[in-house]
């Protein structure tokens, strides 16, 4: 009901703006709709760009303390040394210069959903008609684990370089232990891709080491054919895959990871903790009253929160049954942008949105696989569901797919950030 009334009010203000423009007597700018976006990853950058591209009459501010986003996509290739940090560092300059997005280099600290204002670390108050939250992921804590020392590298940047340092530190015949949290987590094939590239790097460096993969899940979560083949054939004797292995604690001084089964010694390690929606989502009350809820319940027609009106959540933080990835974040951002543009035109959202997922994973230093699925809106459940016959993985990793991976990443980066 609250939402309904607000919607009416906003539509009325939209009508005022429009008639103002018609008579050309009142400055339409003063009442231009204001969209504030928090978080400059794939989701936040894309929604800011597309709202401005599709309707430049809407003011868009992107609140993000960093001058650019460091992409997790391709970041395992920074770990191996195949590409540099500059390849995965995506700046916001084009969002500002080409699309007129107002970049607010500040950290959002709280939201007042009644007054519709975002408060920032520097003390700014940013009023909004519609707020889009795209804060990515947050991590559960694991006893004994300090991710500044033992990186998760599940947010790219300094963590990526810390992971590279871990890999480079493995002695001849040494053991690298990595862990995979229970799904859903960011990038379903990502940890398995990383295991392959760790193994490939050790082989290429003739370290004769091994990679122990502790997976909290009962089986490989994504591309089972590709990764079972890689683990059992390509990297036989190097990768030791252990399903149903949940990390309970880390003994940094003793260099051991403790799981529900065993204690596993390591020379170097990469512990990826269980994940949940970015901090601001919980702080704003968007998870509702059930403490077990990890991801924001939203309506996938517009990504508006089912708990707090006029606040939309896209990307990894949303909970609609879609995989969490940069490609999907971009896909959802466009559905959200379209819904916002329609909203300010007094229209309902598209009743049958689609989101397309595709990604490429390097399996060796010269080959890659792909994974794809298309989602459609399912009115019965109010969720996004995979369309029949669209979920598939590459039959085998190839050099051609490795080349396509860079075409995919380059276009996805450009579509989101420039």
């Amino acid at each position, binding site marked *: 009901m609250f939402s309904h009334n607000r919607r009416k009010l906003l539509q009325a203000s*939209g009508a005022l703006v*429009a008639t103002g423009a018609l008579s050309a007597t009142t400055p339409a700018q003063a009442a231009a709709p204001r969209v504030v976006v928090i978080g400059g990853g794939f989701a936040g950058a894309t929604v800011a760009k597309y709202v401005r591209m599709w*309707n430049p009459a809407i003011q868009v501010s992107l609140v993000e303390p960093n001058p650019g986003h460091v992409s997790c996509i391709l970041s395992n290739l920074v770990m191996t040394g195949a590409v540099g940090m500059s390849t995965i560092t995506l700046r916001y300059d084009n969002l500002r210069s080409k699309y007129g997005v107002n970049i607010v280099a500040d950290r959002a600290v709280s939201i007042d959903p009644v007054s519709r204002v975002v408060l920032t670390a520097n003390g700014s108050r940013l009023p909004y008609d519609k707020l889009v939250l795209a804060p990515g992921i947050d991590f559960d804590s694991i006893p004994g684990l300090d991710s500044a020392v033992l990186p998760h590298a599940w947010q790219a940047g300094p963590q990526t370089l810390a992971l590279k340092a871990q890999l480079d530190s493995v002695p001849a015949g040494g053991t690298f232990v990595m862990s995979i949290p229970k799904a859903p987590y960011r990038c379903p094939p990502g940890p398995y891709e990383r295991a392959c590239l760790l193994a490939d790097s050790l082989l290429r460096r003739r370290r004769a080491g091994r990679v122990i993969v502790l997976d909290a899940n009962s089986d490989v979560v994504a591309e089972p054919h590709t990764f079972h083949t890689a683990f059992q054939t390509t990297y036989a004797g190097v990768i030791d895959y252990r399903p149903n292995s949940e990390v309970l604690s880390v003994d940094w001084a003793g260099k051991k990871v403790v799981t529900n089964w065993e204690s596993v010694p390591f020379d170097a390690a990469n512990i990826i903790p269980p994940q949940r929606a970015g901090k601001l989502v919980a702080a704003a009350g968007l998870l509702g009253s059930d403490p077990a809820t990890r991801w924001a319940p939203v309506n996938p027609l517009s990504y508006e929160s089912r708990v707090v009106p006029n606040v939309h959540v896209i990307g990894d933080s949303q909970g609609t049954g879609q995989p969490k990835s940069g*490609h999907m974040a971009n896909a959802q951002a*466009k*559905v959200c942008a379209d819904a916002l543009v329609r909203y300010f035109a007094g229209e309902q959202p598209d009743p049958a949105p689609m989101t397309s997922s*595709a990604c490429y994973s390097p399996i060796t230093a010269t080959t890659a696989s792909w994974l794809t699925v298309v989602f*459609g809106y399912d009115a019965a459940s109010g969720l996004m569901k995979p369309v029949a*016959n669209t979920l598939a993985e590459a039959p085998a990793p190839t050099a051609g797919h490795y080349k396509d991976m860079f075409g995919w990443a380059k276009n996805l980066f450009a579509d989101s950030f420039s």
Partner: protein
Amino acid sequence: MKTYRKTLTGALALALLGAASAYAAPPAGRLLAAQCAQCHGTNGQAVSGMEKLAGESEREIYNELIEMKAKLKPDEIMHRQAAGYTDAQIRLIARYYASLGKTGSTGSRGSSSTSRKSRDD
């Protein structure tokens, strides 16, 4: 509520006639077509390694996607993508990209979905 919306829509429509579509509803197919842009570039202007879609003929895009959907070759990622969309959705996507022209428009005012139809059909 319904009357209210109707009146509002009427007011908006009037305003739009005079105010260069500041709050126009999106052209048909634009949101669906935007799902191709992750790989094929914003408004079909791929930057590298992928096919550009902007300004391709409606018939060519439509026929190609319908054929992919029918074949479902296991080593072709695009066949799975095509399988996600109904024939009617594919028609809208093809028409939208054809309407953009080779150089691509910003998409903010995307031309009418029927403007290019006569040329392609």
